[in-house]
């Protein structure tokens, strides 16, 4: 920094009169940019910058492919028509969009109450509560759990038991993957409620249940919603656990006027997987369009979650 005389003199006009560097040979302090140390420094900086740029190339490539390949097929018929048979032209994936919404919705219905009630227990438990420690450990194990094993579990416990692939089996598999996120973020959200609010409720004679329902949960709603949104976003993109639980279907959900959740159900992710391995151009285009719709769905959910969490921080 000593070399940077110019700016120092600019800030202190009187410096020249005093000249603190009178006895020092400034030339000797100057460092050459060609020393091995400096060269290594510059090379390493360049390398790291280059690698960071390279890391972003796939992102832009994916976005470009989604927009160019998926965007050109984007039209209203995609949402209203059924997947085409091989060599058939046109078609859409309306049933897969509805299927994804149904499966993820069912999974949320299972995972949200389960996770929030567990979080209530965790937030009320004492620090050395064995069960609470066990639950937190279980949640941590589940976050690192291969998603396909959740599918294997749902296959073994639902598909084999009920005798067929179904939306419910897919929803159970997804809810296992959503559960740890919802539980841990909800616990955090409940714990973030200011202690004085909690104590005020207790001081007014509220029972723990009343405290939870009238003070803790309403205050923690934005945090819980953030966690739920992130979990939903993750679940909507999951494919592996759906492959052999919900399977796929070429037909609409509703038959004879009511929705049957115990039948094989289409989903966007499985449609992409199925069509990606097919040698027909029409199907491949549909796969790209479905990928675009799926990414938009996941991103929207993610962004809603982030907006909720940033609003929570402002308060």
């Amino acid at each position, binding site marked *: 920094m000593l070399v940077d005389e110019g700016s120092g003199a600019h800030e202190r006009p009187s410096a020249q009169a005093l000249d603190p560097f009178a006895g020092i040979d400034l030339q000797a302090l100057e460092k050459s940019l060609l020393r091995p140390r400096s060269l290594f420094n510059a090379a390493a*900086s360049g390398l790291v910058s280059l690698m960071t740029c390279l890391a972003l190339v796939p992102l832009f490539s994916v976005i470009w492919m989604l927009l160019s390949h998926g965007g050109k097929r984007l039209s209203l018929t995609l949402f209203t028509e059924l997947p085409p048979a091989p060599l058939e032209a046109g078609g859409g994936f309306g049933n897969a969009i509805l299927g994804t919404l149904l499966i993820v919705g069912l999974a949320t219905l299972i995972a949200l109450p389960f996770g929030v009630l567990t979080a209530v227990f965790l937030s009320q438990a004492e620090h050395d509560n064995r069960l609470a420690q066990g639950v937190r450990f279980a949640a941590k194990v589940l976050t690192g759990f*291969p998603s396909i094993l959740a599918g294997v*579990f749902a296959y073994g416990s639902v598909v084999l038991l009920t005798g067929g692939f179904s939306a419910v089996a897919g929803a159970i598999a997804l809810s296992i993957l959503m559960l740890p996120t919802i539980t841990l973020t909800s616990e955090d959200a409940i714990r973030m409620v200011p202690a004085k609010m909690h104590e005020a409720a207790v001081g007014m004679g509220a029972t723990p249940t009343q405290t939870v329902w009238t003070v803790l949960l309403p205050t923690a709603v934005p945090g819980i919603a953030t966690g739920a949104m992130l979990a939903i976003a993750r679940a909507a993109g999951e494919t592996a656990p759906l492959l*052999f639980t919900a399977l796929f279907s070429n037909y609409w959900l509703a038959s004879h006027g009511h929705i049957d959740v115990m039948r094989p159900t289409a989903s966007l992710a499985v449609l992409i997987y199925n069509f990606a391995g097919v040698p027909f151009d029409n199907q491949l285009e549909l796969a790209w369009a479905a990928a675009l719709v799926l990414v938009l769905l996941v991103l929207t959910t993610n962004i809603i979650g982030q907006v909720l969490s940033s609003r929570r921080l402002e308060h």
Partner: protein
Amino acid sequence: MASPLRVSTVPGGALEDALSTGLARPPSMRQRLVNKTFLTVCQSFAWLMALLVAAIVLQIAVQATPAVKQYGVDFLTGTTWDANTKQYSILPEIWGTLYSSVLALMLGSAFGIAAAVFLAEGFLAQAIFVTLRALKLQYKPLWQRLPDRAEHALRNLIELLAAIPSVVYGLWGIFVVIPAIRPLCNQLNEDFGWISFFATPLSGPGMLPAVIVLSIMLLPTITALSRDALTSVPSKLRMAAYGMGATRWETILAVSVPTAARGIFGAIVIAFGRALGETMALAMLVGNANRISVSLFSPANTLAALLANSFPEAGPKEVGVLMYAALVLLAITMLVNVFGSLLLTRASRHLEGAR
């Protein structure tokens, strides 16, 4: 909560007055009942959650038992998978799982940690600031926040990589990665075919495209966790190093990275666990070939991809075998996580300096 109210005897009867007006009263029988029930419900859900992991492991183990009895250890050491002769074994899949994960982890860690250093040490913000200073814009109201904004945007972009579903990466891998690397790979095979890594040509799906896509999927995890570890290094340590005349990179390599080593190792362990269980990108890109090869261009298979491809059409006999394979995958993932956390405490103990 009710009892202290009842026993307390306040002179003057203020409390009794309050009680008699009905404004203050102990919880009614019904409220206490509701309270008790609700707390019990919460606790039972907590029990369910704690038992869920055990239930999953148990369920997979129970359904794998017949196959474990029938095939025993040969299942893990043999190389054939033939439904006609009822011969099943998964050594190629175990090899493929570990090989692809380790390669993807090496690639992903290199780029992920580089990006983490780039973000945590403020390279981008500084570069922009220097540019602005050259243009004398650095303190202008609109421009002075640009460095921070750009860095924030870059961080979000890298996190965006994690938001893209794996099946979309698989699709992208088929249509972008494979055509892009195929000429180079086949050239390498022609010229350097005697090196075992390049021993086969890349005819389509294969290990290398799968590894590239897998490493892209691991990158955001590694970057986010390593960046957190690097930014939590106390800045006085960095200042001390700069004060002693160290260059920026001497500071990074000798102070920042060793101090954050624990967090960076942790990130790599978590990423390894993810790589082992990742299914879709591999099922779409690795080629589903039952063979063991060190060649980067050869098709292979992994445990997760085997499960994904075989379960939908599995007959009752095959389900047991696949459950056995799932059990092996579960065991490998658990082992990696346990050993990882042990290694983490071991390895980082002497790297971490005083704080």
